[in-house]
């Protein structure tokens, strides 16, 4: 299927999505309310800037929302108003109520909505899921997922009301991963601690199958490299990956690397291309993608429980998600 994609937003994550769309041979129109769309298309050698959202919806077969978190809900509703299949950067929305409403409306209209939980397409995490599904470690027992990096330099990310902080920026990935590997979550307990621009959230999940998970997400003002790691222990085995180990490329020297918000990945297995490919295939065939709107909603329900638990200092129980 060849599509014209309406890419909304031209900031950080658009720099991952645009080249992936172009690489897959799709046409892209870009609109951004910031003055950064021309620079984005120039940087990646493709895409056409359009002056308005209406022009974007007019040209698009599918929509890709790469804007700040707090704008996802309204923009996705606008895309739904045009009946356009939509890929939405994670988190699906800023609030759980918005996510519930959005997912219900897309489902009612039978329009595909794809939450871009890209970590499911990172090679080591996809391999983790394959290995666990194959039974390599027996029954899942304990998961440990860690994601840490430098605090955002500024802007909307640091405004909790707009971004949801380190919980919705980083931990939402590992929430989705822990649920993908360990199944539905029944109970959440979390603590969070912020000092200036640094913030850690530690969340304990109790899954319906009795397995347990600890998720740690950190932004720190210390100048650290972005790092992801997991260890998944089962009844008779153990799986482990750490972005700090087994690096295929390591530079040491005086050259200053270009600033890059994206974690390292192999271009051969680009997770951004893989998620977009999966979305397009799903739209074309009707087959469910690896991550569904309900997965995005489930991640938001758990994230909401993490926020409430941390605020109230007590465990939060989750009722089973009703099938939609």
């Amino acid at each position: 299927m060849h599509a014209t994609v309406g890419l909304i937003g031209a900031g950080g994550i658009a720099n991952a999505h645009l080249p992936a769309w172009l690489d897959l041979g799709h046409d892209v129109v870009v609109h951004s309310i910031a003055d950064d769309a021309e620079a984005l298309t120039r940087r990646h050698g493709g895409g056409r800037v359009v002056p308005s959202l209406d022009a974007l919806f007019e040209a698009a077969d599918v929509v890709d929302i790469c804007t700040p978190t707090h704008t996802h809900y309204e923009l996705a509703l606008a895309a739904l108003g045009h009946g356009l299949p939509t890929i939405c950067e994670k988190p699906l929305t800023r609030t759980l109520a918005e996510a519930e409403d959005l997912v219900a409306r897309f489902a009612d209209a039978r329009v595909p909505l794809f939450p871009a939980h890209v970590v499911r397409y990172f090679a080591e995490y996809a391999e983790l899921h394959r290995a666990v599904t194959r039974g390599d470690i027996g029954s899942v027992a304990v998961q440990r997922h860690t994601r840490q990096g430098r605090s955002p330099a500024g802007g909307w990310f640091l405004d909790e009301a707009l971004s949801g902080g380190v919980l919705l920026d980083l931990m939402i990935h590992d929430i989705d991963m822990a649920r993908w590997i360990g199944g539905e979550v029944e109970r959440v307990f979390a603590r969070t601690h912020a000092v200036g621009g640094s913030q850690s959230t530690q969340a304990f999940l109790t899954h319906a199958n009795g397995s347990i998970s600890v998720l740690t997400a950190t932004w720190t003002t210390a100048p650290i490299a972005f790092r992801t790691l997991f260890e998944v222990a089962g009844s008779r085995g153990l799986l482990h990956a750490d972005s700090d180990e087994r690096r295929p490329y390591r530079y040491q020297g005086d050259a200053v690397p270009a600033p890059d918000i994206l974690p390292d990945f192999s271009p051969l297995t680009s997770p951004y291309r893989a998620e977009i490919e999966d979305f397009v295939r799903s739209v074309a065939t009707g087959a469910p993608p690896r991550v569904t709107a309900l997965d995005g909603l489930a991640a938001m329900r758990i994230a909401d429980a993490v926020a409430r638990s941390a605020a109230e200092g007590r465990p939060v129980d989750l009722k089973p998600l009703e099938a939609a």
Partner: protein
Amino acid sequence: MKIALLSFAHLHAAEYAAALLRCGDVEIGAYADGYDGVPDGVTAFETEDDLWAWRPDGVVICAENTRHREFALRAAAEGVHVLCEKPLATSLADATAMLEAARAAGTVLMTAFPVRFAPAYADLRAAVRRGDLGRIVSIAATNCGGVPTTRDWFTDPASSGGGALTDHVVHVADLLADLLDDDPIEVYAIANSIPNPGKAVETAGLVSLRYRDGVIASIDCSWSRPPGRPNTGDLVTLTVIGTEGVVDIAPFSGVLTGWNGGPLAHGYGAPLDDLLIRAFLDAVRDGEARQPDARAGHRTVALVEAAYRSLLAAAPVPLEI
């Protein structure tokens, strides 16, 4: 100087015996209590009373966890200094009784936390004290191993007092207490028996801590390593997140790896047992406890007890010392 090993129930008895032998100038006795492993060069006694009649200056208690109290109280009554294998006790009441008995007798009571002597931990402590990390935001600690299989009592709650939470929380809890110079105010724990199943105790556990200054910490204490897994040097890890720096330590990361038809993994790390034993011998010599002392053991027992209370309550509980 005369030092006796009191029971060989815990495998560390053989390691402490080897460390004592390396010290020289120490007469070493042992009451094995029916267990094997007493090495050459150590005088073995038939009964516990024979050991006390030998008049040791100090004893190293390596009995089953639930029997630490009984032996420590006897040592205090005999006026003998004690280095006690961790956990110091399996209840706060027992730990308190041991601490008070030693205090009343004027004897030394130390807790065997060899990781406290790890150079990587010393570097971390110094970096935190210097301010290299800025203000501490959070700590993530792990002490994960396999299910102890060489001695059956580890998985018998009547002897061990519990599973992974009892066995593996205290080492890193001791490091946290020393590093932060504080105890947590609130403890939450979850556990299961999924890894290495079929045991009467929990084999997986996670503990969440909150300190009065807002610092948060997590401990993964799971016996989650499958049998036969080669040493990858990650027995104990700490990640300390600060506003100006982040430190990861792995005190047992010194592992030579290779292959000879199967994986080779030979740890070559620092001889921490030797440092612990030397600290104890110094304490016996002048009657002044060295770190890690009775309080170090006591506060970690309080934390483990809180973790079990949290499991029962399915809620966070205050730490009670």
